[in-house]
């Protein structure tokens, strides 16, 4: 699974997600998937129906594989989500827990 190279994503090269959203042209969200490289990020415009559908599909696939999804609700605070939230600006996926 790799990040897309949509024009919306390329526009993020020099701006943070918050900065892009403040411009009002796009409404960007990101799905962050933990992996061996640290993480892989999938950004999408929440006003682009096709991109949102793709993000929802990714959410379903990852949670089906045992990943847990969490959204940030404030500095240092988060909640676990069981279903896709198209309004979530940042969703983090981490693998299932195992005893060490």
């Amino acid at each position, binding site marked *: 699974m790799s990040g897309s190279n949509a024009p919306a994503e390329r526009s993020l090269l020099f701006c943070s997600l918050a900065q892009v959203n403040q411009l009002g042209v796009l409404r960007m969200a990101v799905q*962050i998937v*933990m*992996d*061996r*490289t*640290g*993480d892989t990020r999938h950004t999408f415009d929440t006003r682009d129906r096709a991109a949102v559908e793709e993000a929802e599909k990714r959410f379903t696939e990852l949670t089906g594989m*045992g990943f*847990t999804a*969490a959204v*940030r609700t404030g*500095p*240092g*605070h*988060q*909640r*676990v989500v069981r279903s896709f939230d198209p309004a979530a600006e940042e969703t*983090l996926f*981490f*693998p*299932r*827990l*195992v*005893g*060490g």
Partner: protein
Amino acid sequence: MMEVDLQIPLLIALAFIVFALLRLSYTPGLETSRSDTRGLELLKDWLSPEQSISYEQCRHFDVIGSDSGTVFRIHHGTQMNVMELDNIGQPVCRWCFVPDGSLVAGDVMLTQKIALETNERGALAVANRSLAH
């Protein structure tokens, strides 16, 4: 015929240069370092300001279990790095649980933080417990 004779050594030299450049561009240690940095950046993004300061200064930060209110100290690391503390901050025991797969330290610590802060019972149910010392 002369041209062909000249082209073969040229092609061999070119292949050697390409091979050498590929060897130089692949540095396993550098790749690991990049992954570690990405993991730590992600962790810092999700820590509270207090947790972030604590991690910067002491390489550990505290979280409060969502079910019991117990304080857990997460040390920098990828295994045996979660300590349960008593009400005066003394270590009670170690808990070992990690995300499945080979993840970098930042990702492991962030997973442990989120798990304890949102589903403490679930996290400890899969964890192995050992003495603090």
